[in-house]
């Protein structure tokens, strides 16, 4: 199946030649947060060995970039998969308000008892967003911890249930 990417102010990707005119709409947000990696089931030495400087007791922080992709067919009247303003509101309410300028270990309820790795955070984000996206469906969530590192969850069985 051929793929063509078109841009109209935000990234969209349309499959051509197949049965579908599914469109993938992506919105990006940024948030700043701190964290540390520490597993209480391991000894201090093991924590240090496994997590290295990420185990420093006072924590450290990142500028996270989150890309959220929603799949759907554009509404014939509005031409939209979903209203970007609504997606922005959902992302602010579910993610920014919870995680921006927060210490992820201590202040994000959904991460309690988990090590806030990029992998675990993106899984929490998927679970928070999936039920809130009611127009189209959540297709992919990608979280960058730095410019060079990201973790992602995808629909179609590749992501968590």
């Amino acid at each position: 199946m051929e793929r063509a990417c078109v841009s109209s102010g935000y990234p969209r990707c349309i499959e051509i030649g197949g049965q579908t005119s599914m469109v993938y709409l992506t919105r990006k947000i940024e948030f700043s947060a701190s964290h540390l990696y520490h597993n209480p089931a391991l000894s201090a030495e093991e924590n240090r060995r496994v997590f290295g400087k990420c185990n420093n007791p006072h924590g450290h922080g990142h500028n996270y970039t989150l890309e959220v992709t929603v799949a759907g067919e554009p509404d014939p009247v509005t031409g939209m998969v979903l209203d970007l303003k609504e997606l922005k509101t959902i992302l602010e309410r579910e993610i920014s308000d919870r995680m921006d300028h927060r210490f992820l270990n201590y202040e994000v309820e959904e991460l309690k008892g988990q090590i806030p790795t990029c992998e675990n955070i993106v899984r929490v984000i998927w679970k928070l967003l999936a039920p809130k996206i009611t127009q189209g469906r959540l297709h992919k969530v990608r979280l960058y911890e730095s410019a060079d590192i990201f973790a992602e969850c995808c629909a179609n069985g590749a992501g968590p249930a």
Partner: protein
Amino acid sequence: MVFGRRYRFAASHRLHSEKLSEEENQRIYGKCNNPYGHGHNYVVEVRVSGPVDEGTGMIVNLADLDKFVEREVIEAFDHKSLNEDVEAFRATVPTTENLCKEIYERLKGFPLAKLERVRIEETSNNTFEYAGEEIPDCGSVQ
């Protein structure tokens, strides 16, 4: 001639001044005053100047600058809490303005070229620069 190189470190901070009341701290620093702190991927651009050495064709060997910045800045700040782990910020609020000055002070003794300027990107939207007491016009090269 000026040579610039970028370095990166990840750290957390909290903006809170002991000289202000709780309410004033909250009003002035907003969510940056949240008690547990938050963090950034800081990008530090270091600019040094000097004559181009005829033998090497370089102002300074970047490996030498790397070693110096690594020792003076990256080791001290990377994966650290600026408030808790950096002596200079025990009594000073670790705004990125103050961080810029602290890094400048740490690097100005580089023996192989003259430190011109330290520029920090706190986020993709916020940048700060410090060039000692006087900031020359942006982009000017002496």
